[in-house]
């Protein structure tokens, strides 16, 4: 994103903060695909993508008034998305704990039998699911072009820790992916 884009985005964010309907709609339009992809990479379930993406945007609009620096909107949005996805996974973990095994099995079948998935996508999805959620977050943030400094801020850790974890996660992902593909 160049300076002009970044200024235009900051202006759009300010308009959305003032409650302008068209600005809010445009903000959703700009980020909905990236947020959906981010949520899908972390959760691994396509059936929760729409709900989770909606939750991310609703949380975004509720908190938008408290964003002091609209120039940092994107990093802020990804932090919010990351937290929403981690919360979702936590809730799912508890839900599965109380779900009968048969129902859980049916849910898994429904996801793996999804139509028109390429072998690469299947392999990537499977490889991502083998990683820890926090490592999946790092891989997804890196794919979204976040810098290591931003990742450190988003995940409340240091840049050196991010470097090490990201390297390890990429290696692990590559090994599983190449084995599957």
């Amino acid at each position, binding site marked *: 994103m160049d300076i002009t884009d970044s200024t235009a985005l900051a202006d759009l964010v300010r308009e959305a903060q003032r409650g302008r*309907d068209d600005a*809010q*709609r445009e903000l*959703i*339009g700009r980020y*909905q*695909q*990236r947020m*959906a*992809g981010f*949520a*899908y*990479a972390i959760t691994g379930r*396509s*059936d929760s*993508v*729409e709900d989770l*993406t*909606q939750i991310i*945007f*609703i949380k975004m*609009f*509720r908190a938008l008034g408290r964003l002091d620096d609209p120039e940092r909107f994107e990093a802020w949005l990804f932090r919010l998305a990351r937290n929403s996805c981690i919360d979702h996974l936590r809730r799912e973990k508890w839900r599965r704990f109380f779900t009968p095994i048969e129902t859980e099995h049916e849910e898994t079948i429904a996801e793996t039998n*999804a139509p028109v*998935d*390429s072998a*690469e*996508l299947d*392999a*990537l*999805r499977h490889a991502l699911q083998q990683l820890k959620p926090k490592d999946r977050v790092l891989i997804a943030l*890196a*794919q979204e*072009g*976040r*810098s*290591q400094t931003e990742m450190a801020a988003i995940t409340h850790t240091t840049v050196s820790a991010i470097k090490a974890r990201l390297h390890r996660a*990429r290696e692990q*992902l*590559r090994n599983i*992916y*190449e084995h599957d593909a």
Partner: protein
Amino acid sequence: MNTTPDFSEAWRSLRARAAAQLPSDFADRVLRTLRRQTFSVRDVADRFFVAACTATACLVFVVLVHTHNTHKGNQVALADWRQISAQADSFAAVP
């Protein structure tokens, strides 16, 4: 941060698959849900305000009644004490 080349095609598929899960009127749905939830939050806030006003009015009423009763009780006790005191003075005056 560069995209890992081996996965780039798979990542594109993943994003496309995720994007395909969103309905065409996704933005409208989000804004509708947001407005509805904002209104329901306002409803809750309004109800809380009414409940708080009612509770405050009840508390004020209880305090007023208590103050009135205490004052009335004190007046009665003071009148009784004056009467007793007058009687004691009159007994004391008897040689």
